[in-house]
């Protein structure tokens, strides 16, 4: 919701809505609608009641209700039911108690404090996890920003306000500018959205949120939102480490990638961002320690093992490199010690590379490990499946060395 508008409240305090919900207080109010706290007299519990203003299309609330009903995840507010009272459509939601992330950022800022890297990464992992569930349902949130993230007791992080949610295959709904300008991807502003790519708007929003969480300021913040949004369209994102030197370079690079002006340059799924964030969280603490950068190379071709070892050493001469020829040994090796980077051929003689990834992800064995598939003939379906597992795909060929050297240089502790 945006700036509060001076209009009459939709419901009045004490009003009994649909003979069940007794309005107790106004929790929030914006240009599009209001959220009340109410008591459900039937079930004797506190709930949140959401309504849209009479001048706003009922579709927003219908869409939000249906989207929420399709998702069951602790990171998404539960919808209890939907009803109508005095001709006004309302949504009955779980009452989530807590502090919104924007207020938390403001409070920290006012105290001159910054969020710890680990704390920020934990939050980002939770939000990315929720987004991955939302996207898997075929929906895109389209308004990811700190004000829509609630920090609830028990470490629960809840994504709120699904009023702009749309199926991510739907392009028609994106022709109007919707969302919050500071967090809005360039293609949403220009209406250049590609069908099936609405989830990349959420990746962009997550990138801006991550930047703000760590830097304490927005990446583009001149005070003029429209100008800032236009600037985001044409300019690369400011370097996070310039504002905060303790942010690991790979995290800064990932956040910049999420905010890439070209949607094709962003991580192509929330899962991909999630696994990278998890890997960064897992590696946190080992950076700067005596532990050398560890790389595991898995390829049944000795010539490829030699080439990959050379390329890794080109970028990280002091890296600890283990090179093995099959999937079973790869799993054993990761069990023994999780590498920082796993370079994995897909076509292996025993269990193939995709199965290795699924096993590692399923067993949460390599959560702190960046996995990159290196293959000569990965199909589009392979690449998409790997993306779901947060695995990047490189192709064997003349460009491999350059891609790998760049990746390793980005990953290595400064």
């Amino acid at each position, binding site marked *: 919701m945006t700036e509060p508008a001076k209009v009459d409240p939709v419901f009045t305090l004490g009003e009994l809505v649909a003979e069940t919900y007794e309005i107790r207080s106004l929790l929030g109010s914006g240009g599009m609608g209001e959220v009340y706290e109410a008591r459900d007299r039937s079930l004797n519990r506190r709930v949140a009641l959401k309504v849209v203003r009479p001048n706003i299309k009922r579709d927003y609330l219908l869409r939000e209700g249906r989207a929420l009903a399709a998702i069951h995840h602790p990171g998404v507010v539960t919808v209890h039911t939907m009803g109508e009272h005095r001709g006004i459509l309302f949504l009955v939601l779980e009452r989530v108690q807590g502090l919104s992330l924007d207020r938390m950022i403001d409070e920290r800022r006012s105290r001159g404090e910054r969020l710890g890297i680990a704390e920020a990464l934990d939050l980002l992992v939770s939000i990315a996890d929720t987004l991955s569930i939302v996207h898997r349902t075929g929906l895109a949130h389209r308004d990811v920003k700190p004000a829509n993230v609630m920090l609830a007791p028990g470490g629960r992080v809840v994504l709120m306000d699904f009023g702009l949610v749309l199926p991510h295959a739907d392009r028609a709904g994106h022709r109007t500018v919707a969302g919050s300008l500071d967090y809005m991807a360039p293609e949403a502003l220009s209406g250049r959205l590609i069908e099936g790519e609405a989830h990349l708007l959420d990746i962009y929003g997550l990138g801006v949120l991550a930047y703000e969480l760590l830097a304490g300021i927005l990446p583009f913040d001149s005070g003029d939102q429209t100008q800032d949004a236009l600037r985001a369209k044409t300019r690369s994102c400011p370097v996070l480490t310039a504002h905060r030197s303790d942010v690991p370079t790979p995290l800064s690079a990932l956040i910049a990638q999420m905010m890439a002006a070209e949607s094709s340059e962003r991580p192509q799924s929330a899962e991909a961002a999630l696994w990278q964030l998890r890997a960064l969280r897992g590696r946190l603490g080992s950076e700067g320690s005596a532990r050398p950068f560890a790389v595991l190379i898995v390829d049944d071709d000795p*010539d490829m093992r030699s080439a990959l070892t*050379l390329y890794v050493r080109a970028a990280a001469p002091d890296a600890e490199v283990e090179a093995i020829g099959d999937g079973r040994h790869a799993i054993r090796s990761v069990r023994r010690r999780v590498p920082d980077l796993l370079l994995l051929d897909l*076509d292996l003689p025993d269990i193939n590379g995709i199965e290795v990834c699924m096993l590692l992800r399923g067993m949460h064995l390599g959560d702190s490990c960046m996995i990159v598939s290196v*293959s*000569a*003939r990965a199909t589009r379906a392979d690449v998409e499946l790997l993306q779901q597992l947060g695995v990047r795909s490189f192709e*064997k060929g*003349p460009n*491999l060395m350059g891609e790998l050297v760049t990746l390793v240089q980005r990953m290595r502790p400064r």
Partner: protein
Amino acid sequence: MTEARDELEKLLAAARADFASRLADKVSELRDLASRGAWSEARRAAHKLRGSAATYGFAKIGAAAATMEDILIDASTSPNDDAKARFATALAEARIESERVRVGSP
């Protein structure tokens, strides 16, 4: 820094030369597997050559190996006469190219 870079360049050049010196053997191995009708092994060998040759900078051999692998994947268990003929053509291209690499002609 420059010394390390020079050393790396030397290592890369040596690795490429070593690979080049074994290219003809790799192509011969493919021919032997095909002549024995060991199509599954031939597919795996073609797959390896496809990736490694392309990576070490021998694009034409990589492309010929890719053609051989694709033919054998399409053929599933055993290729028919047409597939065998196309395989033989790609194999011949790989042999010519590996010979060119061996004698060091441009």
